[in-house]
């Protein structure tokens, strides 16, 4: 057990999936030809001026409300001044002393049950920079300004996160909520969600915070967790060795599994923030907030609660199914047709999710629609197919997109539930396997399983297992 307590705060940059950029009319489409989605405004050409994208502003309010934040009454932007070639104006439009929203929170589940509240200090709007590219072996760099001016939200927590795992859980929960709002695709690989972390240690029981280190360059939630784990260990051993932690920015190297210093506090820039004179501060109308609030979807926690109550699901199942809005929608669409929620939940959390994960697919694009899954489950209940058959049909339906009923028909997979037909096979087998029959009667109960196997073989697996059991027992005189 470590003598230190870990204190973590996270800063998430979220790219909002608006149709156009934050301050001009350029498209925000990802993966386009470099510098094909630019205009004088996002290129910062002399004389151009920004004008705020209303959709970005609405998205920002949506996020703020979903994260339980208070909304500033006046919207004001500031300039953050620094030089870099991916920033064409050499300042970034951001929000400094009056973030759009503040004082929110997210509750995360903690080990051993219960919740922990992670406070959110602020959520503010800003614009993204372009991307620098360094051609292999070249003596120059290139800039792609397509990303320049995309709307970003910066979501900053209080130093309430107590472990790398909590950081991971916070990010998972945040992503879940953002997914419900449909404001961003939250893809760390594409860079639409980026996360920096501040981490410090302090002796257990100490109230003052230790010297913090800023950690950057994590490319996945797992990377955040690993980077923080490494950094917590590094700091603990440094402190134990009597070294002083210096305030610095360190980069996580996922391949080497370690962090290294990028710059110290002394090298940090003075951003010379001041109010952006090109954007007039404006008062947010109450009506707009009410309207956005009314448009908020049922969020994951509320939905999980409803799933527990309405469908009798366990905390765990409800949590998993509501973790992602599309999964929850899938489940609900399925149980509308097939009301045995527990069975549906098991199938979705088992075979369906396994297939999605294996293919890294989007559940909304899954070839097996919720109605098709419902039909499949109904066939099991009616005895038309066995559970074992259902697994194969499900796999094939996902692979080919064919309907489960069609697969059953086409392959002649329908289960034999005709009592007379099964009776005939049973009798036949009992005659052939007289030795086993006498073994069984002599007390060797394992012989029963052998006989079932033989009957299934005769029917090529199509016999209804429940009926086989029943008829076999009857014929064995039980």
């Amino acid at each position: 057990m470590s003598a230190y307590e870990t204190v973590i705060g996270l800063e998430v940059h979220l790219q909002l999936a608006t149709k156009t950029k934050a301050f001009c009319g350029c498209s925000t489409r990802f993966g386009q030809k470099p510098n094909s989605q630019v205009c004088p405004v996002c290129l910062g050409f002399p004389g151009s001026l920004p004008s705020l994208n209303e959709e970005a502003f609405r998205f920002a309010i949506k996020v703020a409300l979903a994260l339980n934040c208070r909304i500033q009454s006046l919207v004001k932007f500031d300039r953050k001044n620094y030089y870099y070639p991916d920033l064409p104006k050499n300042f970034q439009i951001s929000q400094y002393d009056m973030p759009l929203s503040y004082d929110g929170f997210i509750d995360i589940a903690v080990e051993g049950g219960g919740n922990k509240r992670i406070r959110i200090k602020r959520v503010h709007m800003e614009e993204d920079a372009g991307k620098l590219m360094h051609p292999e072996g070249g003596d120059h760099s290139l800039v792609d300004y397509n990303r320049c001016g995309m709307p970003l939200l910066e979501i900053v927590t209080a130093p309430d996160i107590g472990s790398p795992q909590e950081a991971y859980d916070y990010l998972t929960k945040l992503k879940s909520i953002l997914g419900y709002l449909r404001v961003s695709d939250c893809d760390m690989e594409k860079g639409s969600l980026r996360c920096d972390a501040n981490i410090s240690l302090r002796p257990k029981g100490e109230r003052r915070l230790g010297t913090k280190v800023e950690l950057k360059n994590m490319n996945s939630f797992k990377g955040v967790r690993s980077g923080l784990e490494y950094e917590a260990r590094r700091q603990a051993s440094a402190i134990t060795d009597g070294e002083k932690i210096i305030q610095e920015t360190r980069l996580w190297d996922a391949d080497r599994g370690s962090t290294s210093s990028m710059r110290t506090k002394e090298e940090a820039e003075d951003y010379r923030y001041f109010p952006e004179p090109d954007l007039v501060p404006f008062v947010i109308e109450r009506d707009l907030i009410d309207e956005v609030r009314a448009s908020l979807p049922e969020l994951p926690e509320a939905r999980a609660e409803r799933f527990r109550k309405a469908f009798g699901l366990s905390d765990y199942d409800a949590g998993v199914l509501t973790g992602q809005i599309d999964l929850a929608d899938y489940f609900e669409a399925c149980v509308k047709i097939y009301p045995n929620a527990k069975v549906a939940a098991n199938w979705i959390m088992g075979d369906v999710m396994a297939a999605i994960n294996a293919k890294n697919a989007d559940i909304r694009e899954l070839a097996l629609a919720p109605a098709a899954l419902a039909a499949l489950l109904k066939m099991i209940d009616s005895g038309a197919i066995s559970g074992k058959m259902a697994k194969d049909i499900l796999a094939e339906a996902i692979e080919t997109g064919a309907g489960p009923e069609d697969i059953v028909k086409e392959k002649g997979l329908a289960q034999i539930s005709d009592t007379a037909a099964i009776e005939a096979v049973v009798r036949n087998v009992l005659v052939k396997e007289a030795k086993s029959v006498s073994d069984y009667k002599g007390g060797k109960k394992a012989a029963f399983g052998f006989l079932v196997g033989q009957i299934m073989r005769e029917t090529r697996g199509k016999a209804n297992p429940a009926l086989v059991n029943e008829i076999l027992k009857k014929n064995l005189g039980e």
Partner: protein
Amino acid sequence: MEKLYSFTAHRLKELMAKGEVLPSAVLDQLFARVEKLDPGIRAFVLSNKEKAKAAADNPASKRGKLAGIPVLLKDNICVKGEATTCASRILAGFKPPYDATVAKRLKAEGAILIGKANMDEFAFGSSCETSCYGPTRNPWDTTCIPGGSSGGSAAAVAADETIMALGSDTGGSIRQPAALCGVVGMKPTYGRVSRYGLIAFASSLDQIGPITKDVEDAALLLSVIAGYDEMDSTSVDLPVPDYSKSLARDVKGMRIGVPKEYFIEGIDKEVDNSVRAAIEKFKSLGAAVKEITLPHTEYAVSAYYIVAPAEASSNLARFDGVQYGLRALTEDMIDMYIKTRSQGFGNEAKRRILLGTYCLSTGYYDAYYIKAQKVRTKIRADFDRAFSEFDCIITPTSPTPAFKIGARAGDPLAMYLSDVYTIPANLAGLPAISIPCGFSGSGLPIGMQILAKPFAEETIFRAAYTFEQATDFHKRKPNL
């Protein structure tokens, strides 16, 4: 042959409407005059003879409020495909891929853009001497400065090298050169005219406005360029009146305030006399004149020289050699920034960038920038109080007539004080005009400034027009 180049726009409009004058005839005369005079005046940094003549033949320029009227634009206003340099080396070769909103509106009303006017580099100056092209000369005395920063625009109008011009005004850059060149210059209310396409000096102070031969032309030109623009969120969504209709010859009962803080030490005696005589004229025309006080006036210049450079330091950060304009050839990126900016900017630009950067730095921001913004609020409150009792305020435009080229070049502070009377209107966002109101003993023009409350341009035009029609100062021409 009539000297068409000396006509006002409103007179040419009438003649063109009657078919008595063709736009091409005006252009021919005008360009002949530019070719003859401009080597001495140096008001133009770009003269677009061929394009202007082609535009005059285009049916589009035969319609609109300014059909066929030549207009010269200050070199910080973007025109698509035309070199726009802010008279700075750092923008060498820059051709904007778009029109400023004012340029678009002028074209839409049939105006003919004849070229670009010289200016102080990035509008930093009051004398037109900081231009990378060298100074413009005052048409009334070519050993004198024309004022600045819109010195090229004002000199060209005064010398009849254009019919009308646009300038930009951040601390007096339209009004002061208008006064020093004996023409009319108006800074509209902040937000009245779109700044989209105006290469920014200080965003919260900049405004584009007309520089013309008389008040009627100023009203006409403002009617065309004013109005809300969704591309500029600081522009205000208020209907634009037809300012030409506000040109009544009547100031009876108009309440005019004369702030005592504007007639103090440092003001030239002849300027003092001319403006006081003008005020007497207003009285005789029936206005009710009273001395007033604007107690925070003395802090205006100091506050301005914090806010304006602060914004400028950030606005000019984009000139780094990456995308357009000058790029110094270097080995690495930081070196590119340093060399490009060292070579590209002149001394006054560097001085203001340093001043502004310093004022915004951690540890100084509250003491300078925040304090200056508070002063700004106080200055605005002074005016609000005054305008609750008065329709307009009359002051001198500049404490002195035009001074000799080089006289203040080595003394930035003396130069900054050239704008002591014009800066408050920018800090408060008010509309203000400068019109001719006299001449010095050596024959240099003297201007008077008329201010009104926000969006009361009509009041200003009425007062200015009444005075102008009752006097002859605007009719005098320099001997060229």
